[in-house]
């Protein structure tokens, strides 16, 4: 009896999980025409033999063949209903003659929606599906042709890129080798100069020792003079600034001097003035001399150069130029200046060791001679040292660039050093491959770093399909910005679009010849057409 056959198979499938990839395309190549149940691919046709009992493809049960496609699900793997919607986890194969064959989940069979271009999935739903395979097929073919042409042309450019990239790599390597050789030389030279310096400095030191005492006294004396000079200067400045002569500096008094317009908007605001008075309304002379003047002096100095000579500043006449150190400390720094300073620092020459305060003491001729010899040795050493460090820096940069992965054939190398822009409604985006990505509001505002080059980030099968840029500017109350760039084949390097699918996670689409694959000539149609015609 029928029901006994089924005893074994029921209710083993307590939880049926559907196949995860449910929609995929399949091209089947088959040789002979076989009658097969609806929804079965040619490749599986032999598993459905009407002459024998059917065994579920997972082997879980066997039953008469008439249960195949009888619109009732008997197999836990859904294999008995390839052509109906009966099994929750089944799949349906459509031949799509003239286009690509397709496998859709069984739930799409007779649901009133045309999924297969040959309308095979809607044989009973009453949906008016028309066969669009021919149109789709030729459209796909056209697309394949277009793609082929694009790939062909793109690939030609890519070959150039590869060439350039390899050459660049080669010349970098050559340069690197040359630099390394120079480095060895330079190291030797520096060592020699260092030795010479030590040799020259020793007699100089001995000679100078006896002058040490005299010097210290001279320094002390100088400091004293300096202090009293400062006080006099401050006192004079106070008297001058204290225009109402009441022995106190008031906000209004400072407001009359354009020198105190810190933001240079043309007026000295109360806040700007109060800054110099330690946020008080007024300041006593003693306080001014002690703490006020050092604050104010740089502004006076700065203004001295700007204001015309008939200004009272000039009339006081005796205010000495401030020394650099003092100015650096007191001047408010803007961001731009800060950056300049950094650059400046990097390139700055090392501070020369100056063993004595010049001009404070007269040395005898012999000592003077020793000093000059030592100075010369020091200069030579500095020069050798600088040269070595320049070399080292260049080598470091080269190696950094060399360590970048420009693709399997260096094809992405030519993009390094270039930048590409894209604008939408609000922002202009910039991608500088292998360096960074950024955005800038179109209507003014500063640039925001979206990320710095990190690594290739494509899926396992196509590592070079995407780039990752991370550690961008922190979002307010959020994560650091990051950027993923999806690369695809195109005739030129071009930033196509930018989106922000997750907050502060940006995505760019970028075309480049470097991403073009070796062109494959498209098939001239569906191979199965010939098979089955």
């Amino acid at each position, binding site marked *: 009896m*029928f*029901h006994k056959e*089924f*005893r074994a198979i*029921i*209710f083993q499938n*307590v*939880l049926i*999980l*559907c196949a*995860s990839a*449910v*929609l995929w395309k399949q091209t089947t190549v088959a040789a002979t025409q076989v009658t097969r149940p609806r929804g079965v691919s040619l490749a599986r046709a032999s598993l459905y033999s009407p002459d024998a009992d059917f065994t579920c493809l997972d082997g879980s049960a066997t039953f008469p063949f008439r249960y195949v496609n*009888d*619109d*009732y*699900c*008997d197999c836990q793997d859904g294999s008995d209903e390839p052509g109906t*919607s*009966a099994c*929750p986890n089944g799949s349906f194969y459509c031949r799509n003659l003239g286009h690509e064959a397709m496998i859709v*989940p*069984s*739930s*799409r069979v007779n*649901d*009133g*929606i045309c999924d297969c271009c040959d309308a095979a999935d809607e044989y009973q*739903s009453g949906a008016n599906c028309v066969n669009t395979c021919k149109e789709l097929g030729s459209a796909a073919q056209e697309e394949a042709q277009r793609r082929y042409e694009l790939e062909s042309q793109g690939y030609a450019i890519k070959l150039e890129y590869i060439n350039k990239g390899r050459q660049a790599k080669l010349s970098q390597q050559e340069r690197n080798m040359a630099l390394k050789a120079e480095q060895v030389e330079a190291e030797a030279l520096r060592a020699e100069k260092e030795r010479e310096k030590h040799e020259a400095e020793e007699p100089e030191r001995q000679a100078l020792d006896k002058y040490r005492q005299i010097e210290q006294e001279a320094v002390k004396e100088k400091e004293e003079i300096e202090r009293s000079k400062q006080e006099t200067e401050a006192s004079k400045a106070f008297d001058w600034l204290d225009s109402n002569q009441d022995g106190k500096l008031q906000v209004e008094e400072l407001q009359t001097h354009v020198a105190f317009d810190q933001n240079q908007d043309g007026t000295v605001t109360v806040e700007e003035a109060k800054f110099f008075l330690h946020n008080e309304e007024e300041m006593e002379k003693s306080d001014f001399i002690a703490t006020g003047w050092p604050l104010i002096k740089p502004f006076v100095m700065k203004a001295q150069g700007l204001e015309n000579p008939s200004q009272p500043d000039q009339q006081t006449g005796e205010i000495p130029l401030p020394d650099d150190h003092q100015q650096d400390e007191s001047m408010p720094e803007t961001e731009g200046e800060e950056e300049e300073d950094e650059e400046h620092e990097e390139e700055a020459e090392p501070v020369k060791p100056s063993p004595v305060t010049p001009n404070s003491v007269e040395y005898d001729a012999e000592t003077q001679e020793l000093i000059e010899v030592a100075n010369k040795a020091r200069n030579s050493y500095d020069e050798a040292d600088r040269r070595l460090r320049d070399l080292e820096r260049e080598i470091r940069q080269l190696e950094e660039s060399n360590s970048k992965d420009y693709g399997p054939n260096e094809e992405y190398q030519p993009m390094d050093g270039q930048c590409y822009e894209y604008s939408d*409604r*609000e*922002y202009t985006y910039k991608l500088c491959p292998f360096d960074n990505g950024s*955005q800038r*509001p179109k209507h003014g505002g500063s640039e925001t770093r979206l990320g710095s080059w990190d690594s290739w980030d494509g899926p396992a099968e196509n590592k070079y399909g995407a780039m990752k840029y991370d550690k961008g500017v922190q*979002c*307010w*109350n*959020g994560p650091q910005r990051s950027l993923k760039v999806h690369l695809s084949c195109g005739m030129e390097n071009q930033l196509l679009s*930018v*989106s*922000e*699918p*997750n*907050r*502060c996670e*940006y995505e760019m689409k970028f075309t480049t010849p470097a991403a073009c694959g070796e062109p494959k000539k498209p098939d001239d149609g569906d191979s199965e057409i010939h098979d089955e015609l």
Partner: protein
Amino acid sequence: MDHSWLLFTLVICGVTIQSCTAVDRGNFKTCDQNAFCKRQRATQLGNSPWEILLDSLNSTINSLQVQVISSRSQARLQLQLIALADSTLHLQLDEINPIKLRYRAQESLSGSPQLSSLKILEQSSDSISLSFGGTGKAILLVKPFRLDVYDGDQLVISVNARGLLNFEHQRVRKSNEAAATEANPSDPVEGLEQEEGEVKNPEEKPQEEEEPGLWEETFKSHVDSKPYGPTSVGVDISFPGSRHVYGIPEHADTFALKQTKNGDPYRLYNTDVFEYELYNPMALYGAVPFMIAKRQQGAVGVFWNNAAETYVDIEESSSGSVVSSLMNLVSGGGNEPHQQTHWFSESGIIDLYIMTGPTPKDVVRQYGSLTGTTPLPQRFALGYHQCRWNYNDQEDVHNVDKGFDLHDIPYDVLWLDIEHTDGKKYFTWDPIKFPDPLEMAQNLTAKGRKLVTIVDPHMKRDSSFFFHEHCEQNDFYVKDKDGKIYEGWCWPGSASYPDFFNPAVRDYWASRFALDKYEGTSLDVYTWNDMNEPSVFNGPEVTMPKDCLHYGGYEHRDVHNMYGMMVVEGTIRGQLMRSDYKLRPFVLSRSFFAGSQRFGAVWTGDNIADWEHLAIAVPMLLSLSVSGIPFCGADVGGFFNNPNSELLTRWYQAGAFQPFFRGHAHLHTKRREPWLFDEQTNKLIKSSIKKRYTYLPLWYTLFYEHEKTATPPMRPLWMEYPQDVETFSMDNQFLLGDSILVHPVVRSGETEVSVYFPGDNTLWYEIETYKVYQGSGYQTIPVAINKIPVFQRGGTIVPKKERARRASSLMAKDPYTLIVTLDKQGKAQGRLYVDDGQSLDYQKGSYLILELSMENHVLSSKISNQGAFETPELIEKIVIAGLNRSPSSIEDNTGRAVEYRYDTTSQVLVLRKPNLSVSKEWDVSLKM
């Protein structure tokens, strides 16, 4: 590109709430910061001055009217007692000759309640005994005033038993000097006296120090001008015999309500609470002043029909107290502790409906007949909803839609949050991101899906915005206290709020949903009304000032809790009108009031992606369900923050068995479409959603039953097992209908849970393995990540459709599977409701109800209205679990043999392709 994000965050964090990590309690009033709450709470127990003036008694066949006077102030109230159909008693108390008419909430009611008979049985100088609705019994006590309501001989509700009736009369404000010379006895000041707690002759009253908060109140920088002074009303309601009370949503708290004496009372004041805290009585987005009190042998309900800000204090009586002994004297019952509640509102009248049950289902039916039930939604609304703030543009929508298909995950509705609009002007589209909304919607609807767009009630003050211009021209906006158009701050920036209490405004609003008015929409586009508390970022407690003015001259304070519901009423009508009353409407609302159930679905607002919020969804949804709002859900995954894959999986597993099933996420969260997670998570989420789709016939039947009976689809266990004390304070299990028992897993890393199986001798079948458990009692059930414990009760028949498709509409013609789980007597019963799934034709009788039953090895379908609706649907499979041996053959009523299989181990019989028609009656006999 994150520019707009920054703006929102600033708004959210800077204006509405300062902290971005948890609710800022400082933005919301405590009882102590709320003058009327403080005054009412200070009312002294006992010594109620209110007495019934028997001389003034009048009665009709349905009602009695009598005056109540305060022996202290001589103030008089008009009391009206009306008998309503279905064992319901209506008590109204209003002041006589008020300076200004008090607001009476009417929109909460679904119509004029049906009257019943009221008879005075006995009258003495101490009391009036009456009967109502034939069998109901109540006693009005004269001095002090008290109303006792009985179930048979047992006292079940007592009003003013504790003497907390406090009705603040309207009065003329006296300047301090005037108050010193005049003490006008004709201007009683009841509330103040009560607070002083002693009986005083008004004439002897010393110079009255005006208490702060009577005529003006300040909260943070907001001043409430209170031109009508103190107007609050309050009274106590005791539930002798009841140890548990439920309802009064919306609060993020346990299902069984807690004692409040050591903290704030439960507050009902619709507010947009940012990142709300759990397990406290703070007010949330909606308010339903309805409560069920549960005794072991029965249940009663009270509905406090007042739309103003309301508080409810809950205190369990201690045995031996004055009041409880008084109660015992009256009821003759035991001296057991019971729940005593104290209700008070800032304005309006005392408008109390008393529902006497006696079963919980009776109480919800009685409440449903007053405020209405949820009309059967379209089938799609019961499917899965995919939402996010925000799907960025048309391409994004297209890709998400494609993703669901690619991964074979069903969903019915794609939702668009505020970013789809042109600058937060509702009824418009962002022209760049959504240039062709019709085509976009068409792409969804071609696959049987729907689109929902958000339409909030705050209107951008922008002269180029037609809606704003129309409101300005027609004087449609809510006014401030000085009569100027009120301007608040919300998503669009400066915004005004249409006065939805004005019928003309609702008509206008409704007209804007016409397809030729709301451009880019079709009949497949439905609506989401958010922020309708209303949310006002710069307003007091993130809402509208109470002294704003509405239609009819009422203050916002009088109507506040109903504003959100009135918005939705307009939207629903708009949808009905645009389809010429052919299609059922669908609207989701965040704010609600008693009666909102008539207008569709609600959700629990902006929850958080953590385990506690997953857990609280059960008590919150149960509270809504028993309070008349059955179509409710919580954002799956949690709105704020990012759920990990385990939490998201568990949330989908729970959400699939909760009424409104929508995934939603905040703008700042990571994308969380299922396929963005690992393979297993994606599979498990898919499996949960598909499971939901297979149970849609059950959901649909339950919602139809709800419309007719008011019984909610999602039920507390005590609704089916009203005498089982074990179920009375259960927050981790619920029932769907009377058949499915669900125990969500709400803790990380859980490997087993303790499931309570109710019902002595009741069998419970695990829904996939048919493994049997017997009640009543707890059993440990192991849980793996792939599912949560769900069981079908023995004795039930559950209709399913096992061919889950892309969208529910595509399953309309698919065959059914019946799951029959037998009880110990081998019997089972169930029901299947069938109609076209979308139109209003069912209201004209175009539907079928199949009464399914199994008895004596015969399964049958009876249809009382056979022929009323035709459908090609068949029954393709019948599973009968709990059959101890295999039949020898099976045949249907035409004599046709039915193929079957029987599994001895699981004792499950499967009928293969019985192909019985849904449209016709049939039976199937198992020959044993």
